[in-house]
């Protein structure tokens, strides 16, 4: 009797527990389904749509026939958008190929300049008094939190021809400033147009705060004993930097570099507003081309979608690299 009661009781508890679990599961599903549907509508479906659209000659101006207006007047053209972008002679295709080159040029210039500024600055910053460190770090990060549009206004004023602050500074130290920083297509240094250099400088100024705070955080996590040991062994600060700090920061530098490249490939505001892609398309970039072909000069969304796929593939490879770096085991 006693045994059966206790077993009955046990069974009830289990059942009760099972019911509880089922109730919780229902709650979890009911809560997540709207969120997943939302992600489906605004992330997954658009990705698929963009991929499909890149194989169509699509513009919303023409009424298509099939699902989403793809088909009929907006025909399926297989790889033609991509073939056009890589080899075609139409204006958008030629400008896009220039844009690809410019985007890579921009990224290639931004990365080393960014590291050359942020690494030494982070090492010095890390070594000073805590109170000043916080203050300096906060100020260096100021451009990074600012509205890009406002910063472009600032730089347009700094780069104003003749009487802009940069020209004035050049004159003050006895240099001859260029006639026009942003609009002269004929001033080219080592194959890099002056306007591109101007954009790179403005962008690095705006963006260096991110890598700086990442490096400062990484430096703080390096055990003091490692650097002290190097010093006890007679290393000077220069050697300590190159032989201890840089190798220990290798993973962080790699990660910061990948993040910098990914974000540099997608810079928009400064190109659209400071140079408008000019002069003579010297600062035309991939994202600017995508925007202009889709929304500004033409409504050629199929071609723009193909452009965005090319940019996406490049970024995807870099993102995979980023995740691999993040997953590597790391210990000081």
């Amino acid at each position, binding site marked *: 009797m006693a045994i059966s009661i206790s077993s009955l009781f046990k069974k009830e508890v289990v059942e009760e527990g099972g019911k509880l679990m089922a109730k919780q599961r229902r709650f979890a599903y009911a809560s997540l389904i709207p969120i997943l549907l939302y992600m489906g509508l605004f992330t997954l479906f*658009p*990705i698929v749509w963009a991929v499909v659209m890149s194989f169509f000659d699509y513009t919303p101006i023409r009424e298509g026939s099939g699902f989403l207006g793809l088909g009929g007047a907006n025909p399926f053209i297989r790889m033609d958008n991509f073939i056009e972008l890589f080899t075609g002679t139409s204006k958008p295709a030629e400008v896009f190929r220039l844009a690809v080159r410019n985007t890579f040029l921009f990224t290639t210039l931004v990365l080393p300049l960014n590291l050359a500024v942020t690494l*030494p600055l982070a090492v010095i910053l890390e070594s000073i008094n805590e109170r000043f460190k916080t203050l300096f770090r906060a100020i260096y990060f100021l451009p990074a939190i600012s*509205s890009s549009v406002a910063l472009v206004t600032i730089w347009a004023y700094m780069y104003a021809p003749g*009487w802009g602050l940069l020209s004035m500074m050049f004159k003050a130290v006895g240099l001859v400033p260029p006639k026009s920083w942003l609009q002269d297509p004929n001033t080219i240094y080592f194959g890099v147009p002056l306007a591109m250099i101007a954009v790179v400088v403005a962008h690095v100024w705006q963006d260096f*705060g991110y890598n700086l705070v990442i490096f400062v955080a990484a430096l703080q996590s390096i055990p003091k004993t490692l650097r002290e040991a190097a010093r006890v062994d007679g290393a000077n600060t220069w050697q300590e930097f190159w032989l201890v700090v840089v190798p220990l920061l290798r993973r962080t530098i790699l990660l910061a570099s990948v993040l910098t490249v990914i974000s540099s490939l997608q810079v*928009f505001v400064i190109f659209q507003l400071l140079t408008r892609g000019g002069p003579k398309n010297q600062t035309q970039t991939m994202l600017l081309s995508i925007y202009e072909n889709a929304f500004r000069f033409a409504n050629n969304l199929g071609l723009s979608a193909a452009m965005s796929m090319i940019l996406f593939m490049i970024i995807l490879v870099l993102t995979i690299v980023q995740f691999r770096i993040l997953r590597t085991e790391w210990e000081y």
Partner: protein
Amino acid sequence: MNVEKKNRAPFWILGKSGAYAFLILGLVATLLPFFYIMVSSLKTDAELRKTPPDFFPQQPTLKHYLTILTDEKIPIERNVANSVFVSLARVLITLFTSSFAGYIFAKYHFKGKNLAFGVILIQIMIPFQVVMIPNYLLVVKFGLIDRLWALILPAMVDAYGIFMMKQFIESMPAELMDAARIDGASEFGIYSRIILPQMGPPLASLGIFTFMATWNDYLWPLIVLTSPEKRTIPLLLVWFQTQHTSNQGLVLAASILTLLPIFFVYIFLQRWIVDQATQSAFK
């Protein structure tokens, strides 16, 4: 002892004062553009046209600021209200969806959980310009072109926010939840009365970030908003740049006014903001 002293001397030949000199050089380079625009925005029109210009205004004036704030032709109240509305709506919605979904992922066990989380994380890996064109067409289909909801609807769920909240909630003890269940709390009640009140710091970080990102957002509003009274602040500023090329003072003052609200937030919350930015790199 000697080591400790050397520890404070960073660069090999620069020494301590050299290090500070380098830092201050960086400081000047960072602040000079802001400072120059600020002082220039206080110049009179005549002074702005003067060549070569003086660095500081000779007769400082707030004229340009007053023009922007009071001129009837500039719908600044509307534009500020638009930015505030969109930013607050996105902050509140993102905080809710992130913390709620984060709670589900952190505290419930069910089939397909990893798959569902993976689906959400896809958003982090997809650059904006890939979904930009289809999302524009979606907004057209929903009839939201030139409406502020076009800025809110596609940005209601933030995968990074969910990820962040999930990590935070995972570290909270399950005992509290069980105790609340015994007391008869509903599952949603556990979220709203037990979990949410403990989430101040991470919600604040996410909220600040969402606010700044929305306030500064430019490309998406540029695509979906068309009429002057629907503009957000960055669009207003760009309109200023194109309309008032001859009136530099107005453009400069407008830039400063655009920057100020974020600077104001930043002064009080800079530690949080910088820490959050650092962490997001290692997400």
